[in-house]
């Protein structure tokens, strides 16, 4: 019995482990974030403008609902690091003349804050320092407002504002090429001619304040300074990405553990029912001797309890171990001062209670049969099961009904429909879990393919500090190594349909742009319509708008008009939500001469070094986003997460498959040992006997596959839908090969566990069978 107990224990352990891992990692991340935000005064609302007098902060602090307002200078600039060919970018943020910032405070990892009077001392973000092996005292250069400056690192720090720090034009963190640089206000202000002025505002809210109202009032105050619309934490990049990661864990914690609990209940029922039927006569005897029902029930409950306890212990240890791995994994791209897997006792208690409840539910039905039998009846052998005819009543029964081996299987299954259904259901669940795991990998590949190869075909995007006249694209085209160049004009907008509103980037591009293309929902490149917007299909879903509908658009630049535009096309994209339109149409809309913010370029790879050198000497350039680097970063961060998660899922699916198939095979062997031994005596070879034993399971495993595929598709769809967010989505792509691989793995797991059981056919006692009654 102990291998069966181990198999059940493993399933319980799988449930507890998946719960502890997912909920534990979620909580660790969530609680760490909350503590970090609170202790380091992470702001609630943010706004940027080209320039506003510092005195505007008093006005902002007076807005009802605002608890505290802090202002600073924030500027993007190119970095030049010795021994690094490609240009990096830095987001320069001013530090107050005295003390620390009131909001978005720094956690100092190393060194100290810069001397407020120094022109060269800075604090750099921890990830950047680590990537380059920088320590206090090391130096690098930056081009601030066209002037090259030597900077000395006084310290390294982390900030709640940049837990997930991504550079301009990037989608994933790249600590090699992006830094947050904190610099004394005096030095930064003098570099940009912003003495007494600020370009960025952060605000915290009072407990009951309405964020929307504060944002409205803040926009009104900053409007005269050319402020682009204020936004809350939801639209703050770092916070939004972190939220997305948390969603993933939350999602996992609600889908996987329930599957295990269900399988646990079924397996406990299966094994305990068999145990009780084997011990039926002893139960009758004990009852006849005066043992109470409660004592009998207690005995079996203890048995279940011991298995469950072992499973809970193993699951807790495994879950903690996996949780530490997952938390550490998240720690590699979320920069926290401290991030440890929180071992909250209540979580372990929850895992234990849920497992015990599932096991108890499974046991209750089996134990009831032991309890309700009168002793006299129990002491006699159970009545033989009544088998029913199957299809033989038909005038011409199917051919297989003439094969006794097949009929043994069919009638065996037919006689216990619930057990048959539950076994098949369990195996189907295992297939489904595996499909989800494989699906994730496929979806990521599709995402890479569409994003990096179908849509964004440029090798690099050169971003400007501020908008440039249209001929800037011609200058870029003359840079060494540039083979083709296409202009991009980006402007912040608020897009509104009915009561739903989102803040997105509207990018204007040439109608026939060939480098960065627009891919429609049928994965075909589309030509931008002459007028109207092309928007992310996800954004259309959020807005509840369709092609042909009109949306209101607040232009958050220039004369800040509100216009009404039709939606002309939907775009299939997986990162962010955005809107696009024809560059000329956008220029007319903005009532400006055609301008550019960025240029997409394709490069002659043999000349990139020269290009980098030129770019580093071009003050107007704020940063260069490199596709290859972006893709490599995407793979190294997300791919690791995905493969780790997929490995966990695959193992969990295998545990379910082995748990169910092994137990079913063992029970089948136990129930049919006498029958099978008789067959051996009658001259059946071992293999023929094993075939009869395993026919039923093979059949169940096979018929479980199509429902498994369906459930897998469904689970993948749920996963995809729940993971879909405004930051990132995965496509619902399901290849036929996915089904094949998932089923092959389950069949293999089933075959291995069945063969372990089948070996026992060798040990059947042929002599005893001649003398024993069923």
């Amino acid at each position, binding site marked *: 019995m102990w291998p069966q107990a181990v198999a059940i224990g493993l399933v319980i352990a799988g449930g507890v482990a998946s719960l502890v891992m997912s909920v534990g990692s979620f909580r660790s991340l969530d609680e760490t974030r909350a503590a970090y935000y609170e202790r380091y005064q992470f702001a609630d609302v943010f706004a940027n403008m080209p320039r506003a007098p510092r005195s505007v902060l008093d006005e902002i602090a007076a807005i009802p609902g605002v608890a505290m307002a802090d202002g600073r200078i924030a500027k993007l600039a190119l970095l030049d690091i010795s021994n690094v060919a490609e240009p990096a970018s830095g987001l320069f943020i001013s530090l107050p003349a005295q003390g620390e910032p009131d909001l978005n405070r720094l956690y100092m990892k190393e060194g100290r804050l810069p001397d407020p009077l120094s022109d060269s001392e800075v604090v750099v973000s921890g990830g950047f320092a680590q990537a380059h092996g920088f320590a206090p005292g090391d130096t690098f250069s930056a081009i601030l407002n066209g002037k090259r400056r030597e900077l000395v690192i006084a310290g390294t720090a982390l900030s709640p504002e940049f837990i997930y720090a991504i550079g301009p034009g990037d989608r994933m963190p790249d600590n090699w090429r992006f830094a947050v640089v904190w610099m004394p206000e005096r030095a930064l202000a003098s570099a940009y001619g912003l003495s007494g002025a600020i370009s960025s505002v952060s605000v915290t809210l009072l407990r009951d304040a309405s964020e929307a109202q504060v944002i409205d009032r803040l926009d009104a105050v900053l409007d005269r300074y050319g402020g682009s619309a204020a936004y809350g934490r939801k639209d703050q990049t770092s916070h939004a990405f972190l939220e997305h990661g948390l969603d993933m864990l939350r999602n996992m914690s609600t889908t996987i553990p329930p599957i295990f609990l269900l399988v646990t209940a079924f397996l406990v029922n299966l094994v305990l029912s068999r145990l009780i039927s084997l011990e039926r006569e002893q139960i009758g005897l004990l009852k006849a001797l005066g043992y109470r029902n409660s004592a009998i029930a207690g005995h079996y409950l203890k048995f279940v309890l011991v298995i469950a306890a072992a499973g809970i212990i193993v699951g807790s240890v495994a879950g903690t171990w996996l949780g530490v791995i997952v938390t550490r994994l998240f720690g590699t791209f979320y920069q926290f001062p401290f991030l440890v897997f929180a071992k909250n006792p209540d979580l372990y208690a929850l895992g234990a209670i849920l497992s015990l409840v599932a096991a108890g539910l499974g046991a209750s039905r089996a134990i009831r049969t032991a309890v309700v039998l009168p002793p006299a009846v129990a002491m006699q052998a159970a009545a033989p099961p009544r088998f029913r005819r199957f299809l033989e009543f038909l005038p011409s029964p199917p051919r297989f009904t003439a094969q006794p081996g097949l009929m*043994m299987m069919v009638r065996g299954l037919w006689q216990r429909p619930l057990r048959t259904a539950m076994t098949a259901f369990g195996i189907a669940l295992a297939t489904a879990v595996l499909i989800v795991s494989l699906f994730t990998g496929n979806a990521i590949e599709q995402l890479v393919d569409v994003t990096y190869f179908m849509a964004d075909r440029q090798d690099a995007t050169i971003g400007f500090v501020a908008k440039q006249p249209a001929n800037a694209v011609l200058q870029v085209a003359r840079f060494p190594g540039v083979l083709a160049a296409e202009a991009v004009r980006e402007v912040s907008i608020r897009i509104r349909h009915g009561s739903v509103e989102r803040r997105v980037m509207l990018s204007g591009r040439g109608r026939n742009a060939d480098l960065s293309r627009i891919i429609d929902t049928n994965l075909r490149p589309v030509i931008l319509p002459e007028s109207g917007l092309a928007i992310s299909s996800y954004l259309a879903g959020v807005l509840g708008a369709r092609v042909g509908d009109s949306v209101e658009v607040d232009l958050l630049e220039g004369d800040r008009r509100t216009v009404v535009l039709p939606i002309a096309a939907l775009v299939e994209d997986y990162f962010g939500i955005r809107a696009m339109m024809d560059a000329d149409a956008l220029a007319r809309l903005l009532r400006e001469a055609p301008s550019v913010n960025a240029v997409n370029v394709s490069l002659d790879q043999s000349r990139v070094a020269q290009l980098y050198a030129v770019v580093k000497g071009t003050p107007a350039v704020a940063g260069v986003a490199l596709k290859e680097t972006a893709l490599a970063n995407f793979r190294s961060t997300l791919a690791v997460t995905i493969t780790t998660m997929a490995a966990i899922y695959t193992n969990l699916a295998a545990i379910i498959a082995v748990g169910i198939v092994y137990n079913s095979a063992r029970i089948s062997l136990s129930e049919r040992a*006498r029958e099978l031994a*008789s067959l051996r005596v009658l001259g059946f070879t071992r293999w023929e006997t094993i075939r009869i034993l395993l026919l039923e399971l093979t059949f169940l495993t096979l018929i479980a596959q199509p429902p498994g595929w369906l459930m897998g598709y469904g689970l993948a769809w749920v996963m995809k839908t729940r993971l879909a967010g405004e930051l990132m989505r995965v496509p619902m792509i399901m290849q036929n090969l996915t089904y094949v691989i998932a089923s092959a793995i389950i069949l293999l797991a089933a075959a291995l566990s069945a063969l372990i059981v089948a070996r026992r056919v060798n040990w059947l006692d042929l002599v005893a069978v001649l003398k024993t*009654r069923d």
Partner: protein
Amino acid sequence: MAPPVFAAKDLTKTYASGDVEVRALRGVNFEVGAGEVVVLLGPSGSGKSTFLNIVGGIDTATSGDLRFKDIDLTKLRERDLTRYRRESVGFVFQFYNLVPSLTALENVALVTEISTNPMRPQDALAMIGLENRMHHFPAELSGGEQQRVAIARAIAKRPEVLLCDEPTGALDSKTGVLVIEALLKVSAELSTTTLIITHNATIQDVADRVFFFADGNISRIQRNATRRRAADLVW
């Protein structure tokens, strides 16, 4: 004289149980001719079941020779013993050992499917008078009927040897007589060598010879000058 179907010389079987050795067979010598009906009589523990198990190829002797025609059964490997049972031996068990999920006909067909020269399952059942109960499950048949299905299953492959271990042990006398009658009928029709273990001394009268077992050996062999008809037996 035709060569014997079985010939044993100094056949022994010893079971080791911890430090204790149990000698179940102590140098048994015997011969059984083709078509002979032999009844093995003796008290429990006298070695007759061990003897039948070794003859049937489901157990192996510790020492001695046992030949089935010109095959030395003591030298056969497990796989060859399976083939021997499959091709040459028909078993009838005390508790029938039918597959409960199969009808009478299917129980017989289960064995004919793996045989090289079987009779039709229907014919086997007809031989023992169960042609009208072919589509019943074991649970729908009486004990005697179940045992007769077991006999049909044993003889359907036309075995050379029929080994019966207490075939009437679980039956009342009237049904037991019917079963013995069926056994003798098929063994005569198919010229099958038949060995029947029993506690029931009355049954010895139907045999050609009776082996009396005591203390792990054949203590006496009795040849019946005339065999009684099964129908005449009463116990």
